[in-house]
């Protein structure tokens, strides 16, 4: 069973604050993803990466940076957090590009509240 671990699981920060969400996968998957989940919007892709040092822009990238430091670690950075970024964030990984039929494995989520 693939393992994707996120931290912190819960975070409260103030507007303008700096937040880093961490994700580690232990299956040597090539692809890693950051999604946000909001009521009425489902899951929306923020950024993804196909390997260490690589970063690809997703559908809702504004206000977010990301960095893939190793095969295992993918970080989501909010340098000036805003209340609109209050959300549930999920990290996921997959072995290859998803169109070829490979499965996404999700972490348990990180709930961020920006006050």
């Amino acid at each position, binding site marked *: 069973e693939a393992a994707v671990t996120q931290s912190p699981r819960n975070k409260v920060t103030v507007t303008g604050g700096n937040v880093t969400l961490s994700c580690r996968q232990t299956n040597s998957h090539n692809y890693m993803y950051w999604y946000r989940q909001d009521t009425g919007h489902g899951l929306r892709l923020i950024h*993804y990466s196909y390997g260490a040092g690589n970063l690809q822009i997703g559908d809702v990238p504004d206000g977010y940076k990301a960095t893939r430091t190793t095969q295992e670690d993918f970080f989501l950075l909010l340098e000036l957090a805003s209340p609109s970024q209050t959300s549930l964030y999920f990290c996921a990984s997959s072995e290859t590009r*998803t*169109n070829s039929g490979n*499965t996404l494995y999700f972490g348990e*989520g990180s709930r961020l509240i920006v006050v």
Partner: protein
Amino acid sequence: LAKTTQPPSMEAYEGQEVNVSCSHTNIATSEYIYWYRQVPHQGPQFIIQGYKDYVVNEVASLFISADRKLSTLSLPWVSLRDAAVYYCIVTVPSSGSWQLIFGSGTQLTVMP
């Protein structure tokens, strides 16, 4: 872009078979169909995938219409643990890469 349409909610009793439909009228030749589910406080979990015809695994079965515009996820003998949001997804090309786009899903309520 291939989008999906699912019923927003369904209800079933424990032990019943549940069929969740999904319409994807603009599905492209190269796109696959995926089903995931999500229970509260957890990330989505893969259920099944298919390209055409009929696919079955230990958890569910997936029927895809001949024109591939409609798929149906079938869950045999649902239990309370199957209460979740079920997502039907088709792959979408973006900037030369492929992604899964999650919609709003179908909320399945299972009653004892």
